[in-house]
């Protein structure tokens, strides 16, 4: 790499419940995203005319989230009219992908200062409402073996022999850690959402269920049994003939929550940082991207992380912290196995998406800011961020503090 890609800042909104009772339900996606951009500008005294691009992940780019929301949000945030914007969609990896693309453009020397990030207001623009050829085109669906992700998660858990208790325990830990981190104010990158009058709308991750118990979690019904019974189990088993029956183990409790949120990460070269007197917080060391078999879909994080580690010339032992997106509890357990990690001491130390939710297009970049906050708090160096991705893909990014 010709140049270093430096992270100068990383901020995010709190995550609101992605339903009608959620606090951010009344906030349009473009307003939420522009609030983050304005805050980024304010915190860094940013001359926005120097920003080469705003790259935002958004997984349901339709209606209020349609039509290149990145450029629209930059304009709405009253950023310099010269700042371009691009919306990208790599499903659940979108937020991290946006940061990676920003980093690649900076490292290549083609660009100097880019904002990556993402937005998803799932309460207003429901998941999958943008459609997609994978499931709306029957020929494609049949030929490639499409199943809903929950079926993939249950297939994965069945094949790995995870028990319901294994999954629920992980969910319990996520809830406990997230509650603790919130109470102690560890989420430094979180910026409250205010309305146009300066009145507070939300200042904490409201999906967290304080005081969740194991028995609460155990009482939840499997979420994907009905879809499985409809025939999706059969679709999955056609590809995995060694499995006799899929155990439906994932519930609303041990899967990620549906939430609303937006996030932005400021990435730039060393030179521009010096010129603008920005404080370097970390650098992006390497990134890994893979695709795997799409029906089981969720096993990408392991190979993606190994790819990133290899490129960085590091091993998993070099990682002080690891953020693996808790799309489903089974994904985390499989990831740990793939990377031969035996405990959770370094993993999702402040909870994850089972507690705080997974705003699809934003999550990847939010995990990065969460990891960075915690590295700073612990005064540690290096973190790995990884997510499973629709279509069988996986993504990973390694960051190191400066």
């Amino acid at each position, binding site marked *: 790499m010709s140049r270093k890609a430096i992270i100068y800042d990383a901020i995010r909104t709190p995550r609101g419940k992605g339903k009608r009772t959620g606090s951010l339900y009344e906030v349009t996606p473009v307003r939420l995203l522009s609030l983050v951009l304005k805050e980024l500008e304010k915190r860094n005294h940013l001359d926005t005319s120097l920003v080469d691009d705003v790259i935002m992940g958004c997984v349901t780019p339709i209606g209020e989230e349609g039509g290149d929301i990145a450029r629209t949000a930059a304009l709405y945030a009253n950023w310099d009219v010269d700042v371009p914007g691009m919306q990208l969609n790599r499903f659940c990896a979108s937020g991290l992908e946006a940061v990676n693309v920003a980093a690649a453009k900076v490292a290549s020397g083609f660009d100097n200062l880019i904002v990556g990030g993402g937005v998803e207001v799932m309460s207003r623009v429901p998941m999958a409402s943008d459609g997609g050829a994978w499931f709306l085109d029957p020929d494609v669906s049949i030929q490639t073996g499409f199943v809903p992700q929950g079926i993939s998660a249950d297939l994965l858990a069945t094949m790995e022999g995870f028990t319901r208790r294994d999954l629920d325990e992980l969910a319990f830990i996520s809830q406990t850690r997230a509650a603790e981190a919130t109470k102690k104010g560890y989420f430094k990158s979180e910026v409250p959402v205010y309305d*146009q009058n300066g*009145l507070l709308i939300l200042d904490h991750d409201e999906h967290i269920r304080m005081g969740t118990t194991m028995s609460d979690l155990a009482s939840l019904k499997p979420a994907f049994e009905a879809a499985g019974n409809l025939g999706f189990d059969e679709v999955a088993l056609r590809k995995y003939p060694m499995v006799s029956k899929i155990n439906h183990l994932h519930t609303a409790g041990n899967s990620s929550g549906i939430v609303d949120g937006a996030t932005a990460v400021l990435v730039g070269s060393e030179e521009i940082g010096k010129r603008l007197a920005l404080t370097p917080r970390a650098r992006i060391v390497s990134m890994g991207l893979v695709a795997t078999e799409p029906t089981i879909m969720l096993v990408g994080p392991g190979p993606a992380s190994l790819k990133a580690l290899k490129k960085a010339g590091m091993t998993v032992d070099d990682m002080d912290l690891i953020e693996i997106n808790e799309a489903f509890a089974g994904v985390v357990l499989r990831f740990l196995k793939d990377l031969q990690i035996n405990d959770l001491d370094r993993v999702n130390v402040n909870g994850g998406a089972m507690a705080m939710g997974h705003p699809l297009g934003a999550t990847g970049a939010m995990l990065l800011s969460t990891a960075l906050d915690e590295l700073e708090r612990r005064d540690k160096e290096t973190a790995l961020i990884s997510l499973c991705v629709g279509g069988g893909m996986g993504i990973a990014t390694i960051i190191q503090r400066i």
Partner: protein
Amino acid sequence: MNTIEYKILGPGIVNLVLNAKNQSKNIITVSFINDLQTSVDQLASEKGLKGVIISSDKASFADGIDFNFIINKPSAEKLFTLTEKFKSSLRKLETLGKPVVSVISGHCLSGGFEMALASHYRIALNDDKIKIGLPDIKLGILPIGGAITRISRLMGLQSAFGYLTDGKTLSPSKTLETGLIHKIVDNREKLIPAAIEWINTHPQVLQPYDEKGYRLPGGNIMHPKMAQIITAAPAVLIKKTRGNYPAPAAVLSVLAEGSVTDLDAAFRIESRYFVKIARGNVAQNMLTTLWYQFNDLKKGNNRPELPPSKPVRKVGVLGAGMMGHGIAYAAARAGYQVVLKDVSMEMAVRGLKKIEAILNKMVEKGRITPEKKQQLLKRINPTDNPKDLQGSDLIIEAVFENRDLKAKVTQEAEPFLSERGIFASNTSTLPISSLAPSLSREDKFIGLHFFSPVHKMQLVEIIKGKNTSEETLAQAFDYVLSIKKIPIVVNDSRGFYTSRVFSTYVEEGLALLSEGQNPQCIESAGLAAGMPVGPLALTDEITLTLVEHINKQTEADLKAQGKTRPSHPADAVIEKMIHEFNRKGRSSGAGFYDYPSGEPKHLWERLPKIFPLKETVLKQDEMIERLMFIQAIESVRCLEEGVLTSVGDANIGSIFGWGFPAFKGGTLQFINDYGLARFVEKAKYLKNKFGKRFSVPPLLFEMTALEKTFR
């Protein structure tokens, strides 16, 4: 409770009677909102409740909201809590599970209508005098009680947008056509029985939008057809408002943003915009001028404290030309007997024909009936005989702006004034006190400056001469109100208030041209500032010759007093246009614009050659500031010199007299809006850069030092 009576009307039927104690009107005040909450809570715990009737014991159902909780920008939190409280009571009312019927027996406006909208059934008395609607948008504010959301759910986004941004009030029968009320009855006594009957036949009832399977009529913004409409709506709005009025834009945002959410979130979105708009400068400006100062004016704060004057029995108008026929029309429209006198019968009848033409248009539009037209025309007596003026309680002279001519017609008519009669001159430029000596009773002489076209323009500038009596002023004031026009009262001075300040706008535009600014940019700046017409087009309308004439007159008058008129950069422009290029304005077919027949006018293409374009182009903002500051500064001078005696007159006169933008609240409110200290600084800068005409009046320095505002 002081505003709502909780009455049991029959078994299980509760009547909430809106009847504010010791008040003439039902107004949605803070205590009303509290009382409503108490009432609704009581309803929720009422045993055996079958239904609720909301009615009023006053002439109106409810007249609107109390602007006192909006003016002076209360905290966002306070305002948000208030609107949410009102909304939550209304929501609770409509989800009690029992039928709620509103009985509308009088005006049902703004917050009052919003309460009716939260009922399941709305019955009104079929009386065309009753007004129903949400007019507050005209004062720059949004409904407080969730009307945007409810009406959008009832009408669909498109119709709701039209209805809400229009702000027109409608009669019960017209409102019935919109679907916003359900039934009209012909007889007051039938209202309550009709309500009871509906309650009895509808024991279980939900609002349409609470029914299972409800769909937003026309769909939300995701619907392809609605997406097209929503895409065009901002452009439609900007064409209308030039982006200067945030309230209708906020209506559109509430409609769109709330269309994809449930009702509760939509209400909250509406509340947030309500607060934003209410605390915004535009709403504050408009309320200050168009509500508070306007009400003070109508109450007669500028009228001498004298008993109401005796009604005028007969009005005489001298001159049946452009102004005269309009003045006669306005009098006849208000029911007065009018004598329209000109030098010949032919001229007088020509004036009458023009009145008939105005009326014909109104008949075409259905605004009056052909019978009314005939009755009105019969009240006007065209004549060439001064004796026909005999017994007039008011004679208004509206002949050409020529001192000798005015003196002649005045002397000719004065003998026919009634005992209590007064004499008015409709001059727009000649000092009243200089015309007065032609009358034997100078105390009975006053200026009544009507604006053209009289049948459309609401303002009348009343000019007190040196010797005008208080009684005469009171009579003139009462007359102007009686013809439903807006009287401002000023003291005599060159150009009075309106012509004097208005001309500064025109001349500043010409100054910009003389400096080599792009003529189209000058026009665009005027329009963007919110003025109805660009300064160059406006000069063409009033004619360059008139500008020159007034300047010459001023010069001569000042010379007679041993003074000299300060030169203005506009002088050279007028001089050149008239005397080098023979372009005198629209009426002579050529001015700053060309007027090709059958085609739209366009700026004369040689202007940039005659007034060579300068390389340094002023930004539009700076042009706007010059065009507005010059008017504001001149208004301060008028106040300082005592030409104006109240801030309200300055503001109202500017809006209704020459179309100063209402969103700025008028010429003096403009300074409040800008901030006095900031205004002074900017004016100093403009003075240094562009000339003494921008020098800050001492009054403004004083007020800034004392941190005062124009009130």
